């Protein structure tokens, strides 16, 4: 039906604008990403996780910028109404163009996870906590954290869900002598600095997730399972504990606190709580 139904002339101006915006978006992502967002790290393995994250930010950030700039340049160059190239890309050009980026990506993605990521991950999960770790039991429920320390005997009392009541939120079995001196806290944990902490994570009702943003710890709490996790806090202070798995309408307010204190202060606190 003639010219009127064809796309009109698309001058180079729109090409230049589009190219510029594509480039600017890439640079914008990089600039925004070059700031520090991670909460200041407060655990030993967290340093490894941060190394992983920083490595990824730098490498993928570079690729984001490069990718946008290359695309922007192509848009700029090929929107200027020249003749279409009549030659086809050769098999060799095609191979190089796909193999080189694929190799770069392999090195960045697989290299990163194998060299930096997996060692941190397997230290946390396969080696397990050292034997001198403080042991704490955390039982998540809608919408709070039950924290239990063993008493002076170093042993937790037996739990029986059929005994759960308002006064006995964990269902502690009164006939078990090991439980008599157990310490129970709500949404509050005390730990000494630089000592490994081992958390035995449980859930009473639905899924929750034990999330310590400063300590780079996140572990789902699953009803029916007791999951062990551990970390070494390296800085004293009061830190947030949050829930990271949707657990109902109160999910957002399942806040808890982790107090990391000196060894002496920790002993003092334990003494006091044991009464």
């Amino acid at each position: 039906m003639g010219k009127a139904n064809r796309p009109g002339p698309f001058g180079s101006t729109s090409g230049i604008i589009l190219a510029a915006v594509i480039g600017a978006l890439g640079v914008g992502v990089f600039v925004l990403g070059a700031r520090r967002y991670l909460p200041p790290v407060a655990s030993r393995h967290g340093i490894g996780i941060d190394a992983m994250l920083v490595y990824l930010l730098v490498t993928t950030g570079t690729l984001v910028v490069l990718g946008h700039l290359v695309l922007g340049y192509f848009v700029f160059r090929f929107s200027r109404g020249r003749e279409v190239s009549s030659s086809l890309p050769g098999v060799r050009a095609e191979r190089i163009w796909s193999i080189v980026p694929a190799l770069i990506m392999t090195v960045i993605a697989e290299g990163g996870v194998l060299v930096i990521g997996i060692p941190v991950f397997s230290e946390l999960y396969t080696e397990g906590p050292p034997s001198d770790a403080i042991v704490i039991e955390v039982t998540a429920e809608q919408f709070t954290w039950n924290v239990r320390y063993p008493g002076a005997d170093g042993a937790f009392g037996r739990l029986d869900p059929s005994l759960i009541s308002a006064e006995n939120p964990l269902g502690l079995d009164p006939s078990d002598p090991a439980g008599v001196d157990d310490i129970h806290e709500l949404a509050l944990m005390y730990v000494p600095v630089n000592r490994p902490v081992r958390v035995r994570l449980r859930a009473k009702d639905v899924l929750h997730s034990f999330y310590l943003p400063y300590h780079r710890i996140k572990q789902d709490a699953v009803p029916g399972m007791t999951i062990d996790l551990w970390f070494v806090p390296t800085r004293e202070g009061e830190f947030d504990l949050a829930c990271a798995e949707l657990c109902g309408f109160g999910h957002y307010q399942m806040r808890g606190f982790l107090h990391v204190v000196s060894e002496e202060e920790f002993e003092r606190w334990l003494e006091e709580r044991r009464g």
Partner: protein
Amino acid sequence: MAVTATETEAHPPSFLRRYVFSTDHKIIGIQYWLTGGLMGILGAFLAGLIRLQLTWPTTQWNLLAKVFPVGMEGGFMKPEFYISLVTMHGTIMIFFFVSLTLVSGFGNYLIPLQLGARDMAFPFLNMLSYWIIVPAILVAAASFFVEGGAAGSGWTAYPPLSAIPEAAPGSGLGQTLWLIAVALFIASFTMGGLNYVTTILNLRARGMSLMRMPLTIWSFLIAAAIGLLAFPPLTAAAIMLLFDRHLGTSFYLPEGLFVAGQLLPNGGGSPLLWQHLFWFLGHPEVYVLILPGLGVTFDVLVPFTRRPAFGYKVTVYCLLIIAFLSMVVWGHHMFVSGMNPLIGEFFSIGTLLITIPSTVIGVNMIATLWGGKLRLTSAGMFALGTICFFGVGGLGGVFLGNAAADIQLHDTAFVVGHFHFMIGGVTLLAIFAGSYFWFPKMFGKILSETLGKIHFWLTVVPFYGIFVTMHFYGLAGAPRRYYSLSQYGFLDDVAWMPLVMSTFAFAMMAGQALFVVNVIKSLWRGQVADKNPWEATTLEWTAPSPPPHGNWGDALPVVYRGPYEYHAAMGGTDFVPQTAPQKGG
């Protein structure tokens, strides 16, 4: 085979048979495209409510109190209503917007047209697949107005939250309706998938070998195949969840559950079972959506670069490799779920393998520009935008596939930013690229380019503004699915971000109105399209715009060459349709 052109002319079908209960793939495709579009508007509206709450939690919204008298009582949002909004936004966007518009809409419309067939292999099944979606949508929408409100356990519906009615307000009737809606969706999608695979394998025109199929068709074939493999486990999982909810079984429920002041009698099940089954579907499902997004992008890009798709064969192989890998990496959603961490390392390495074929596809898209003569139409620009989104989204995926990094990022806003770029963004832009591109074929009118370009700018730039920011909000530690994040000290430094994200979000939503206006205005008095307004090579452009019932007159097209021949300038043109005989042949 399907109906022939003469047959239809002999018995003009009634209006109802023609436009409502039609078995014509084009009408069904358009029905899906429109239905999906309306659901997209609904999904965006819910996203708007989410953003209102996250940005202005203390403002009173009296108008909204009238629409949602329970959830927004007194003009303030209740936390349980917020969670229902997040759940239904995700569910609607994935199952009822992107799946319907992109996969079912363009799939049904294009498969016969690009293959040179008169219709799908099973036209009646095709009609049925659409008409099953309608009750699915009604059920999902009704769930907002039942006691307790809509489902509130996320689009992932993890038990026990989703299994125990007392565990949350939305876990009552709302969750049951959610499960019914999703089950209906699966039934419909399975019918569609069977139709896609059969049609593509059996109804190709003479000369249309597999390696002459446009990449769109390849992507639909592969997507339908993984869909057919992945959906049955989810169906089984959903039935088991319904049993747990209503018949007292314990597939997902362990012993000793204490919910709402009561000890439950269940025992022996595991919540992790659901996660495995769900993600065994859920991960392939995102590829069911994104692969067609990539295929469509290639097909829209090429006519505007006036160059063949770079590395066609390599791209096909990469799509196949991605499809295979996508079936074996579901565990990357479960690194911190309590699953055996050794398996986590395996899933991590496997997931990152996907970046390799994905990179190749991305660079092939970029290389398609090389040596070309760009025509910057709205369709072409949206296709270029898709490449950008695929890059940003894919590189975010490198973080999340990395098990160590995922400890910090899992279930934070980083994840939300990432998947919006991929299943939200790549697919959204592909939908728009495809709509601007095929609208002339679908309706015989060309969409306004001016409105189209403003729409492009108001989509792409705000999208970066919202979802790039969201990545960093997550890096700062912000958990997802939070009704309010104001009480956490570690977010003080990024407290400026929600306002930025919301401003961009509302700008983007306003921009989408332009598309609606454009469609209506162009249908009414748009420029009339001829057969091949973009000077493209594939078969749909050899049929009239819009094509009649049966697509071509008496003779079906015969194919002599590949889908993207833009190099050889012959007779003053720079493109050679697939139907042009080879020289001397």
